[in-house]
C-alpha cells in the first residue's frame, strides 16, 4: 500500500475548527428547537436572525405530525343555487392527489390561525371569478366525523359535521 501526504494549508485547521463549531451549533439548534425551546429569545436582535436562519434551513422545527392525537379533517363545501346547482367539496375536483393534499393543508392552516371566515371569503372570491354565472354562493366549513369501529360495525359511516356557514353575494 502506498501512502502520500495530502496538500495541507495553514488555513485547513482554522477551516476545520470553524466547520466543526458550525456543526455543533446546528446540532444544538436542532435538539433545543425540537423540544419547543427558544433559549435565544432573550437576545433581542439576534433572536429574529436565529429564527430566520433556523426556519430557512429547516434547523429550527418541531416534529409532531399526528401527535399526540389524530385530529379530525376539515372540509369546505361550496354550494350555489342556479341552473345547474353547483355543489362541490373544495379539493375534490383536483386533478392530482397532491392538489387535494395541498388544499387540505390550506384548510388546516386557517384553522391553526383561527380565521375560518377569511378562508370562506377567499373561497367565495375564487368561486365568483371562475363562475360568473352564479350570483350567490354558500360556503360551509366543518369536519369529518369518523365513527368508532363499534359504531362502524353497526352501520354508521363517516359524516360531515357543519361548524360554520356563510353566504356571499356578487356585487359587480
Amino acid at each position, binding site marked *: 500500500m502506498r501512502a502520500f501526504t495530502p496538500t495541507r494549508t495553514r488555513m485547513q485547521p482554522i477551516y476545520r475548527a470553524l466547520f466543526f463549531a458550525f*456543526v455543533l451549533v446546528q446540532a444544538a439548534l436542532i435538539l433545543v428547537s425540537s423540544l419547543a425551546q427558544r433559549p435565544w429569545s432573550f437576545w433581542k436582535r439576534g433572536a429574529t436572525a436565529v429564527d430566520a436562519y433556523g426556519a430557512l*434551513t429547516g*434547523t429550527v422545527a418541531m416534529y409532531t405530525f399526528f*401527535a399526540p392525537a*389524530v385530529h379530525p379533517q376539515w372540509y369546505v363545501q361550496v354550494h350555489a343555487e342556479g341552473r345547474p346547482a353547483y355543489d362541490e367539496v373544495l379539493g375534490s375536483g*383536483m386533478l392530482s392527489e397532491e392538489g387535494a393534499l395541498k*388544499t387540505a393543508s*390550506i384548510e388546516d392552516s386557517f384553522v391553526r390561525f383561527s380565521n375560518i371566515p377569511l378562508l370562506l371569503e377567499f373561497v367565495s372570491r*375564487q368561486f365568483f371569478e371562475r363562475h360568473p354565472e352564479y350570483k350567490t354562493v354558500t360556503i360551509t366549513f366543518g369536519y*369529518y366525523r369518523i365513527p368508532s369501529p363499534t359504531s362502524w360495525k353497526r352501520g354508521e359511516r363517516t359524516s360531515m359535521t357543519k361548524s360554520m356557514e356563510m353566504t356571499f353575494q356578487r356585487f359587480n
Partner: protein
Amino acid sequence: MSLDAISFPVAGERDSRGSLVSWSFLLRSGLGCVLLLQSLGVWLNLKEIMGPGATFPSSVAELVEPRWQPSVSWLTPLLARAGLEGQKAYIFCFALYTILLVLLVLNIRPRLTSFLVFALHLVILGSSRFSIYGLDIFANVGLFYCVLAPAKAPPGSNAIWRSSLVHRLFQFQIIVVYVTSGLAKSLGSQWWNGEAVWLALGEPVLRGMVDARPLLIAFPAVARLVGFSVLIIETAYPLFMLPKVTRPVWLSLIIGMHLGIGLFMNLWGFGLMMIVMNVAAFGSEYAVRLLEIIAGSRSKGVTVRQASQAVFTGEQVTFPAELHQRR
C-alpha cells in the same frame, strides 16, 4: 484534542461501504425524484395552489410571511421586465424549479443545482406557505444537507472529512425527528389504544390504495399493535439504528412503516421522502450494494467505495493500492 483527531471517529468508519460520499449522492438523487414527482402533481393544479388565482392568493400569503422569507414577490420586479407578470411569474418560477429538479436527479453540477433547488424551494414555500405539509418541511431539511455535503471527495482534500461530519449531523437530525415524534405521540392515549390508526386510515383525503378498515374491524388488536409498533419504532430509533447489528432490521421496519403510510394513507410523497432520508442517513451502504446487484456491474460503486475505504492516520492519508493503479 487536536483538530486532526476529530477526523478519526468521524471518517474512520472503515467497515462501512459507501457511507461517506454515496449518502449525499443518494440524498440528492432520491430527493430530486420525490420532489419531481410532487412537482408534477402540483403542475396539474398550480392555479389553485400558487399565484393570484389560488384558493389563498399568493399575494396575500406573501404579505403574511416574515420579511426574511424569500418569495416570488422578491423576483417580481425582475420578472416583470421580461414580461412575466401575474400568474406567469409563478409559472416561470415553478418551471425553473422543475427543470432544476431534473438536473438534480441526473446529478449534473450537484452542489450548484442543490443550492438553486434549495433557494427556489424556499421561494415557492414563501408564496404558498398555507399549503405546505410534512413533505415540504422535510424537503427543506433534506435540500439544506444537499447544499452542505460535498459532491466529490478528491484524496487529501477536506471533502471526506466534511462529508462525514455533515452526514453525522444529518443522522442526528433524523434521530431527533423520530424520537421527538415518537415521544409526542406517546403523550396521548390514541396511539396506545389504536384509535389513532383507525382515525388516520379513515380520513377521507388520506384514503389510500388499500382500505384497511375491514381488517381493523375484524381484528381490533391489529390497530393496537400497529399503534404500539409506531411508538416503539420511532422512540427507540437511535437505540436500534446506531448499532450496526440491528440497523438493517430497524431500517426495514422504518421503510415498511413509510410504505404503509403511502399504501394506506395515500401520502406517497411523504412516505418516499422519509424512505430516501433514512436510506441516505443510515442505509447508504445497503443501497450501494443493492444498486450494484441491480446494475449487475460493480463499476458504478467503485469510486464510492474507494473513497470510503480511505484510512485516516493523522497527518497522512493512505489509500488502497488499487486506487493508485486505477488512476
